[in-house]
């Protein structure tokens, strides 16, 4: 049984189709890259899987259970978490407090008001996360002072607090400087692999996608243009045309009348 199964997902905003009969299945331990131009429906896809938006029609199943109409907080507790394009952290709190709050509410299905937040137990757990995501140096800094890359890491660290089986990362390296991109992804991917988490990540940087994804989904106007190993998808003609852009590095212009063929021209 696949971990996540999406069947015939449709979502329209007025006349714009964000999801057009999308169907796919993700097996456990897969690492899937999602690419597509802006407005192709990638973030909407992530929003729908995590319950922030609801599809017009279609089903989303997680471990065989229908989660289509659940709220984000229910989906989080089931084991699916996400990070955000723009990091969603608690700006006025310190990095450590951000993690403590996340850990504190994750512990118990009903948030406790009788226990204290700053217990040794939680502080230790926070320390583990701080180290794993290279946030230790920023421990006592308020989140609004953090540089973008560090804020992204905090955002991702907060996403894994619930020990998800499935993690969706929305543009984990956007806004991160070029020289930091690989560093950030290395940190994140190693940590996730160790924990055996299934990952779907949305990315614009094709180098990142090529390096970390074992499978790539290419979105375009709500449709999945291609689905396969990175070499195949990244070299796919229509993907080149609609996602990567003609003339960009690695792309080749096809003759105007040729019908798209499967298989890559990488």
């Amino acid at each position, binding site marked *: 049984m696949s971990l996540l199964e999406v069947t015939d997902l449709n979502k329209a905003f007025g006349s714009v189709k964000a999801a057009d009969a999308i169907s796919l299945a993700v097996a456990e331990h897969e690492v899937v890259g999602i690419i597509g131009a802006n407005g192709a429906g990638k973030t909407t896809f992530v929003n729908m899987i995590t319950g922030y938006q609801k599809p017009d029609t279609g089903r989303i199943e997680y471990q065989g259970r229908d989660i289509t109409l659940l*709220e984000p907080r229910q989906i989080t507790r089931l084991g699916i978490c996400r990070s955000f394009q723009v990091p969603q*952290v608690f700006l006025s709190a310190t990095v450590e407090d951000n993690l403590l709050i996340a850990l504190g509410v994750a512990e118990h299905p009903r948030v*406790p008001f*009788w226990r*204290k937040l700053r217990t040794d137990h939680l502080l230790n757990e926070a320390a583990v996360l701080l180290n794993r995501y290279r946030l230790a140096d920023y421990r006592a800094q308020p989140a609004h002072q953090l540089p973008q890359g560090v804020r992204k890491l905090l955002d991702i660290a907060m996403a894994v607090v619930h020990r998800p089986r499935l993690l969706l990362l929305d543009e984990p390296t956007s806004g991160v400087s070029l020289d930091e991109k690989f560093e950030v992804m290395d940190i994140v991917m190693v940590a996730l692999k160790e924990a055996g988490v299934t990952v779907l990540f949305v990315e614009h940087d094709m180098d990142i996608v090529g390096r970390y994804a074992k499978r790539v989904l290419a979105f375009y106007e709500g449709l999945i243009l291609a689905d396969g190993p990175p070499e195949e998808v990244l070299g796919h003609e229509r993907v080149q045309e609609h996602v990567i852009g003609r003339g960009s590095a690695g792309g080749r212009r096809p003759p105007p009348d040729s019908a798209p063929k499967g298989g890559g021209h990488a």
Partner: protein
Amino acid sequence: MKDRTLWGLTAGTLLLAAGGVWLPNWAMFLVTVALAKGLAVLGLLILWRTGLMSFGQALYFALGGYTAGLLGQTFHVRDAFLLLAGGTAVSAAVAAALGFLIARYREIFFAMLTMAFSMILYGALVKSQALGSTDGFAITPATFAGFAPSGAILKLPLFWLACATAYFAALGLHRYLLSPMGALAVAIRDNEIRVEYLGVSVKDAVHVKTVLAAALTGAGGVITALAVGHIDPEMAYWTTSGEFVFVTILSGTGSIAAPFAGSILFELLRSFAVQYSPYTWQLTMGSVLLLLILFVPNGLWSLFGRLLRRAA
């Protein structure tokens, strides 16, 4: 951290309770009412930390007062503890019911909706002949576990009750703010989406906080009604809510004792203003408020904190 607050609160309350014995009547009355209203401000503190400002706490203030009055008049309940429990319970129950609606709103709409509810009660009270309409009605003095105070110590037990209620409320809230639920207040204010994605229902959390704030305010209403000896619809008017908000800003959110200190200061300020400039006391209060907002944005407690640090 907790120990320091615990000791500070305990010492402060004991000092106040003991010192109160020597206070002249007008001062004891003032402090009693100030502590009672401080409870309402404490409630607003919780909400403000969550990023919400209620302009309708007068609803629960009046509910507390009128419940105490009605329990006395209709059921002949005179025990202060029972009245306190009754008023608090009614306020909490109403907030629990209204909370389903209120918890869905934020910012200015939260403020407006809460104000609307308090004005609905006001309108109902004014039109109610049975409850004395705009005149309201009087409350007979309370007894304390059978003991009926009189003479020199007439107001003392109520004063002590106010001190005790304030103390336990502050302590309870202090503990609450140290818990994950309490930490959620600032989290919700900063980023509701993230809170939802952490598995918490923001609506439920806000609902709980409105009930807490309501219970505190209701308790304040009971004690105020007992102290003044009279209840009228003015307790539900928007200007009463405005007063609570005024004091919240005055005190700042820096400490759990700030609402009470700020409330006492406010009552003192108003008494003197009314006494020495009866025709311009609002001018005085307004100017003070403006100056505070301009120069002490974190409330008076932050000044106090700065002084303490410099002394240390």
